[in-house]
């Protein structure tokens, strides 16, 4: 099973990189971009075949290491 973890700064935490990219898009005349947020994606290949157990394990991974929940949110997508 594959787990795709998307990590981004929490709403309300200033995303300086997103802001810089937003400025660059403006400079390139890409109008109509209201906001840019930059995150990271971590792809895990899991030996676990039980979806519920996999979700539980990946959630623990996010809480302990993959995300810093003081400033980041995470989303987990499982693909079997």
């Amino acid at each position, binding site marked *: 099973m594959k787990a795709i973890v998307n990590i981004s*700064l929490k709403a309300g*935490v*200033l995303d*300086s*990189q997103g802001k*810089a990219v937003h400025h660059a898009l403006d400079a390139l005349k890409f109008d109509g971009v209201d906001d840019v947020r930059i995150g990271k994606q971590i792809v895990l290949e899991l030996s676990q075949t039980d979806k519920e157990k996999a979700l539980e394990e990946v959630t623990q991974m996010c809480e302990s*290491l*993959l995300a*810093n929940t*003081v*400033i980041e949110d995470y989303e987990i997508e499982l693909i079997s």
Partner: protein
Amino acid sequence: MKNVKVGIVQFPGTNCDYDTQYAFEKLGCETKLIWHKETAVDDGTDLLVIAGGFSYGDYLRSGAIARFSPIMDAVGRYAKNGGKVLGICNGFQVLTESHLLPGALKRNEHLHFLSKHHHLKVVANNNTFLQKMQSGEVVNIPIAHHDGNYFIDPESLKELYNNDQVLLHYCDENGNISNPNGSVDAIAGICNMEKNVFGLMPHPERAMEAVLGSDDGLKMLEGFLG
């Protein structure tokens, strides 16, 4: 005077370990480098320093992987028993990632790596670290970081101030607030509620010789001599 024993933790990628050793030996302390695979802190250690650098290449987040090195369990136990811990730069990041200090260090607001001298103003001095400095005193100390943008939510920030946990603000030479990296309230250093775990982004261990730009680090670190 009692011989102060300082342990200095080294991770793969730590690069301020020897500067830190130089600084504390200059102050007359006995020092010992502690490799991150060690699982215990020597009895009689008066201060543990998590030195600066780029532990594990700053992969994932600065300090995130170092936090799970074997020595960190011992550091946690040492701190819980009231032992004094000082995290400098990457060490500060490791301590926030370990939840031994509140908040988190984000990428600098303007995204640049900063490496220069910067002035700092002492906020709270009713703690071991800054006990020999005056509140409002200004020192000139180098900074060198990419992820030094201190973040904490507004409610926890209030608690930090109420409990005198804010140690240092970034300022200019006249003591006026000057924020190089976007930190909440221009905070450069904090301590925990119990006031035995300290973290700061600037490098006092790099300000030990006037001929190299500043020796203001001496009076900062002297607090640990008791």
